[in-house]
């Protein structure tokens, strides 16, 4: 009896100590976010004088900062936000559908030599760093675009095309791993009922892939939304079309040390992601874990 109570007390003390340590670490980790939020309410002079305290912060100043940033021609927040959203959403839909189609064909022919070859090439390609393909990629897109009369650089379709190419391997790898576990009987039953192969895929297989499509969409979405190098090379630093990270870089480049504006821009840039995280916290964290363990 007595011993049991002691164990209970020990566990309680330990839990309390752990909670305190955890809180201290959480404060340290969240501190930069707090600083961004706090200083978006101040002007340049108050930020430089006192970056940590509340002195000099006001809602009116936040409004001034916001309108200065949002209407800035180097940043043009709504346009960049819209561009990023369009690029991310279209790429994610295409990657999910085209990836599932390809993964289904590959895993349903997994005894055939061509299927094994494609799968192996996809896996091997995942080690290729972006740096080794980026320079020829730009020149190829420029030359091919000029030749066929489609602008592939500085255009949304071109960048979506590139994301489908770069995200394809990982997407197919994760989806094919899942499809292997879907019983083949299901498809045979559908075929006996007179369903065509494409009908079987869209009506039977695709709905079953929902959980794993969520995973790849989260992994690809985090990457595409935050990606800087590919859009900066393809769209150009000072091009007309800009994604959010490219716009932040262009904005900071033109307003060195203007922390009131830079931090407000940073706040606007991180806000969409944080809102999405608050809504779909569990799915995002589970998706990231799954991607790491399988990838």
């Amino acid at each position, binding site marked *: 009896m007595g011993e049991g109570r002691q164990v209970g007390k020990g566990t309680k003390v330990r*839990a309390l100590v*752990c*909670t305190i*340590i*955890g809180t201290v*670490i*959480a404060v340290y*980790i969240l501190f*930069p976010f707090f600083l*961004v939020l706090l*200083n978006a309410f101040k002007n340049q002079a108050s930020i430089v004088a*006192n*970056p*940590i305290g509340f002195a000099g912060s006001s809602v009116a100043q936040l409004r001034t900062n916001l309108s200065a940033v949002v209407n800035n021609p180097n940043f043009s927040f709504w346009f960049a936000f819209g561009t990023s959203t369009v690029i991310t959403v279209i790429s994610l839909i295409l990657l999910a559908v*085209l990836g599932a189609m*390809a993964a*289904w064909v*590959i895993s349903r*022919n997994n005894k055939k030599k061509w299927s094994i070859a494609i799968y192996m090439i996809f896996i091997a*390609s995942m*080690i*290729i*760093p*972006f*740096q*080794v*393909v*980026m*320079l*020829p990629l*730009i*020149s190829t897109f420029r030359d*091919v675009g000029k030749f*066929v*009369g*489609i602008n592939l650089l500085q255009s949304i379709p071109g960048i979506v*095309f*590139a994301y*489908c*190419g*770069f995200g*394809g*391997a990982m997407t197919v790898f994760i989806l094919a791993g899942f499809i292997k576990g879907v019983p083949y009987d299901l498809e045979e039953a559908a075929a006996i009922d007179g369903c065509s*192969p*494409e009908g079987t*895929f869209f009506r039977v297989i695709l709905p079953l892939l929902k959980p794993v499509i969520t995973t790849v969409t989260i992994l690809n979405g*985090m990457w595409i939304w*935050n990606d*800087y*190098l590919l859009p900066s*090379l393809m769209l150009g630093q000072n091009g007309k079309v800009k994604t959010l*990270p490219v716009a*932040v*870089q262009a904005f*900071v480049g033109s307003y060195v040390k203007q922390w009131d504006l830079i*931090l407000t821009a*940073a706040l606007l840039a991180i806000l969409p992601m944080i809102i999405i995280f608050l809504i779909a916290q569990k799915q995002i964290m589970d998706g*990231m874990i799954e991607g*790491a*363990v399988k990838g």
Partner: protein
Amino acid sequence: MENTLNKLLSPILLVVGLAQVVIALVMDIAGSKSEIRGAMLVLGIVLFFIGLYLVPTQKHHRKIVYVIFLFPLLFTFAVTVIIPLVLGICYSFTDWTGIKFSNVVGLSNYTTMFKDPAFIWSILITFIFVALNMILINLIGFLLALLCTSGLKGGGFFRASYFLPNLIGGIVLGYIWQFVFNNVAIKMTNNISWLVQSKTALMAIVVVYIWQYGGYIMLIYITGLTQIPGDVLEAARIDGANPVQTLFKVKIPMIASTFTICTFLTLTNAFKQFDVNMALTNGAGSVPDFMGNYLSNGTQMLALNIYNTAISKNNYALGQAKAVFFFIILAIVSLIQVRVSNKKEVEL
């Protein structure tokens, strides 16, 4: 009824599609600047595939569907990854300017790059950075995972807040931390900013990188730790193992495969590090004497060095050769990873 319609429609679409593609290509080759040739090419390809789909055949229908399903992704993959990779390796042996090349120069790009002390410095600090990161992120991630699974109150909140930095892109993160180091930290410590000197600036990059990735690695360790069966821990407790013994003799050996995953994940990610490096220091920093030279790229890691060589200094061939070298390093790391993982699986 449907079949006869297909019989009619399919050849028409095939022919019209093919004709459009051919006309568009002829216009391209003839040097036409007509606006519609691009749209014609795309439309032609789409029509051709619809025609192919409607081919009235029972026997080959499944094969046709397979081809149509595979084509889009394979095509984008070939154009964005395979072709540039092959071209890139070829370009590294030429005097490519980013637009064209006139001479094959053999290995001279490679010999030039290894004679450049700034590049050697970049390789060196990248390896130091990768090693530091691998150890520290795994250590911190694992400790955070132990903390989060120790039965503290509000575990979900802590998990989410530790993971939060991972959501933000490296460019924005880099600028936020530039502010923290240059404006906040100097006020709090009355010291000069970490970003001023190369050595401390490198440490700053390590700190920011841990801040960004520690929470992610923690999540993976938490998954590993929660997958340890409860009765194993119960048995250890009954046998009188204290928490420290349980940790080293039970928990750590049981999540060995998680350690492998996290080690290689941090390893490859740290190698490719670019965004934070660019936004935080942009590679600046002075090194007074390295191999008898003064260097001004004290914090420039490999990925950023490649980018600057090609884009800022406009030396595409040399940048491409460096990129190929970078690729070889990563390929070796990945091969070791496959070896180690396979070995582990055999042992289990």
